[in-house]
């Protein structure tokens, strides 16, 4: 009796746990058009759809979804129905790599948009390169992804010809932010914190270097672990360091709590961060503490772009979850680049998909040259976007307000 109930219980608990964790994965391949005349081309998406960073990750997924819906509705590529296959990488490099392998293995997938995090991208690039599958990230900003590990020394080497991005790099973003902090805000004493990830640490380093170059002083440095929640010791150090600016390299998950706890001590030091924290979720969580905080983000504000008006309306009316403001426009443009490349490849092959479609698509994406909803889309010889516009935002009355748009010559 006891043994049987033990068995039933263990089975029930294990099965329960397994079922629940299985719910975490998503599949947007619900519909099946039943084959027929039209060919199906799948655009893969890899982003954190649950857990850490999922608000911006979902914004990325649905940005692609809208691009695909538009292409299908307008019959952009005759004879082809596009579909989205979105995989959740949970912001974990290992999971991203598994997803990359799964996408490569699905021969309907001819292009991938994502991932969100630079650290995840590092683990995926090789998988896509080996399979000749084109990957366009709307949000990776770490320069090493396109220009190689030694980009700081000026020795730029492109390691993966299948990797592209529609977001500009942190070399540009960090320099732009530091210039804004020192020239416009007149900040002199900096405390810098990062989350030790490829994106956060890289951005913080570039900001720091430029801050010092512009005459500022570093009064303190620290690192956090992603997932940390109690920052009381850290904010005490920041408060007592005499810093007049706290720069955070990382995502909103930690920075929104850091700013809340920092302002809670009575310190009035603004937190400045990169595109990783430029999301409405940051303000929602930090509340009043976010007031006056700053962030830079790639591109120009989506809602000021006439070309993106339609996109925003579609996003809002479909009531998609996630924040479209940060990368939604770039995700749309990345998906559009793949869709246009599919059309170019088919046009060159009598309206049919060639057998080596994946390889031909890489070359076609490299030649992209069109007006996207977030700006002009074309790629340089490293796979970086030629659109190097950036915007600085500040929280005013509970909203991110654009305060300066410009470019920065990272040299």
């Amino acid at each position: 009796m006891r043994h049987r109930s033990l068995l039933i219980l263990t089975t029930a608990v294990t099965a329960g746990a397994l079922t629940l964790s299985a719910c975490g994965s998503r599949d947007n391949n619900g519909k099946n058009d039943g084959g027929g005349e039209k060919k199906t081309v799948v655009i893969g998406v890899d982003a954190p759809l649950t857990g850490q960073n999922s608000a911006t990750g979902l914004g990325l997924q649905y940005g692609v979804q809208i691009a695909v819906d538009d292409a299908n509705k307008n019959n952009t590529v005759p004879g082809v129905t596009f579909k989205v296959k979105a995989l959740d990488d949970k912001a974990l490099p290992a999971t991203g790599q598994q997803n990359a392998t799964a996408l490569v293995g699905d021969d309907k997938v001819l292009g991938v948009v994502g991932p969100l995090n630079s650290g995840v991208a590092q683990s995926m690039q090789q998988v896509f390169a080996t399979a000749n599958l084109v990957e366009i990230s709307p949000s990776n900003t770490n320069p090493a992804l396109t220009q190689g590990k030694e980009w700081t020394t000026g020795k730029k080497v492109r390691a993966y010809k299948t990797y592209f991005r529609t977001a500009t790099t942190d070399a540009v973003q960090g320099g732009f932010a530091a210039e804004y902090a020192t020239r416009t805000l007149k900040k002199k004493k900096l405390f810098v914190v990062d989350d030790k990830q490829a994106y956060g640490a890289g951005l913080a380093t570039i900001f720091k270097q430029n801050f010092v170059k512009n005459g500022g002083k570093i009064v303190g440095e620290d690192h956090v672990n992603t997932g940390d929640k109690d920052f009381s010791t850290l904010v005490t150090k920041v408060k007592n360091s005499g810093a007049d600016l706290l720069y955070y390299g990382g995502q909103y998950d930690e920075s929104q709590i850091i700013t809340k706890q920092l302002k809670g001590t009575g310190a009035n030091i603004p937190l400045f961060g990169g595109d990783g924290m430029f999301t409405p979720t940051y303000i929602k969580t930090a509340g009043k503490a976010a007031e006056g905080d700053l962030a830079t983000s790639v591109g120009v504000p989506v809602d000021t772009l006439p070309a993106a008006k339609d996109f925003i309306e579609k996003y809002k009316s479909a009531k998609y979850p996630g924040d479209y403001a940060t990368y939604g426009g770039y995700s749309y443009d990345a998906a559009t680049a793949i869709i246009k490349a599919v059309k170019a490849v088919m046009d060159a092959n009598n309206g049919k998909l060639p057998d080596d479609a994946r390889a031909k698509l890489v070359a076609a994406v490299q030649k992209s040259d069109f007006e996207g909803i977030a700006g002009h889309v074309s790629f340089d010889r490293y796979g970086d976007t030629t659109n190097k516009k950036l915007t600085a935002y500040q929280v005013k009355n509970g909203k991110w307000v654009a305060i300066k748009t410009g470019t920065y010559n990272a040299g």
Partner: protein
Amino acid sequence: MHTLPQQLANGLFLGSLYGLIAIGYTMVYGIVQLINFAHGEIFMTGGFGALTVYLALPDGISMGIALPLMLLGGALVAILIAVGAERFAYRPLRGAPRLAPLITAIGLSLALQQAVFNWYPDAKNDRVFPQIPGGPYHLGSITIQTGDIFLIIAAPLSMAALAFFVRLSRTGRAMQATAQDPDTAKLMGIDTNRIIMIAFAIGGLFAAVAGVAWGLKIGTVKYDMGFQAGLKAFTAAVLGGIGNIYGAMIGGVVLGLAEALATAYIADIPGMQQFGGQAWSTVWAFVLLILVLLLRPQGLLGERVSDRA
């Protein structure tokens, strides 16, 4: 830099929080020798229970009225889950080899986490927890936030209440007896099942107080907050001598202080720059645990027990 008093205070606040959660580990272990690894998730559901109550209350309600109700709601949820876990997940396994309930505990912890993740609205992001208005207050060079005030009042109060309960009440004495020798206690007419259930309920109650304190201190609650906090609290319980309720509180405070001081000062030691700071706080907490266990295996307040694992 006059940061030492402030950092000591930070460590004390964080440590009291660990201590509150650690009580649940220590009481359950003291009575049934089970490490309830789902306890961190019980703490988490306590926080979410309190948040749910707050969201159900009308807007703009003062925290003076809302906070007791939130505590009540959080406690209700946490106690129900703790007692339910005991009744349906652990009691059928009592008498089974020790590994079986341990694995059930881990399974239960995952199941609870995933349940909140999937079914609580928007639990995937940090859910904003209401704050007590006012503050920060200044005490010399120490800044105290309102969330910390709640903690510093709630922790000793609940500890004192528990000490009175265990020492002076009939049920408390029955608990001590059960902890010492469950079989003999049963022969003496003590309903050990009831006593064990009460131990789980008290653990749940303290976890709920900790859950609310966490929400007030950190500012948000999240589905995965129980994992790391639970692990730290477990460490605190072992540090203080698992099975000893005062040890849990002291272990928590020692751990909190160690974390705060390591975070603040290790990096100032020449040659140790790369081993200091926020990112290393957990590492130093565990270094401390290892040191204590090497020098005093029974924990700070634990008694040397020869025949029990």
